[in-house]
């Protein structure tokens, strides 16, 4: 199966700093979604970016997609302790094939 690769795997930052994580893939996608998982709220959808889009914003989140490099980045600005979680990309390929990436663990230190 096609598996996204996020880099870095683990990130520890101070509250107020920005956090950036990446997701790369090997085969063309229809769209890419980012999800957050923490113990309190389970898996929650954050943002979706289509293959014909290059950048999207949602609150403190900014997602970019570079289809030529087959990679996406998720930026969280002005991080908060509540942003501590694992972040996963979900890749949608054609024919309803999909795969989650391995995930980034982000720890925001108050």
């Amino acid at each position, binding site marked *: 199966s096609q598996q996204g690769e996020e880099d870095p795997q683990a990130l520890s930052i101070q509250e107020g700093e920005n956090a950036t994580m990446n997701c790369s893939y090997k085969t063309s996608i*229809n769209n890419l979604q980012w999800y957050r998982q923490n113990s309190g709220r389970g898996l929650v959808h954050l943002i979706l970016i289509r293959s014909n889009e290059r950048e999207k914003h949602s609150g403190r989140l900014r997602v970019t997609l570079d289809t030529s490099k087959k990679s996406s980045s998720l930026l969280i600005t002005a991080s908060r302790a509540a942003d501590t979680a694992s972040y996963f990309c*979900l890749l949608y390929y054609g024919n309803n094939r999909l795969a989650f990436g391995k995930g980034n663990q982000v720890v925001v230190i108050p």
Partner: protein
Amino acid sequence: GAGVSQSPSNKVTEKGKDVELRCDPISGHTALYWYRQRLGQGLEFLIYFQGNSAPDKSGLPSDRFSAERTGESVSTLTIQRTQQEDSAVYLCASSLVAAGGYNEQFFGPGTRLTVL
């Protein structure tokens, strides 16, 4: 409105026994997905249902795994002759029509399966 619910929340079973996991999707969601998440790892896609179409079983790891869904309602994931490597959290998600994957998935809380 109710979200996706799963039962049981925890299941401990002995190696070789069969287990059945249940997922209640959000009403009106035609697409339903099952995933497996081993401790500290990402989500592994298992199976996907879209309305009354034949399910996409491409992610099922072995023939011990099967899933059913009646129409656009409840789904059950059955694992026969469980093995210790089946221990994981099994997550269910639902979404509106999934063509192209342009809809967010709503996840249930998961069922934690432990095979002794």
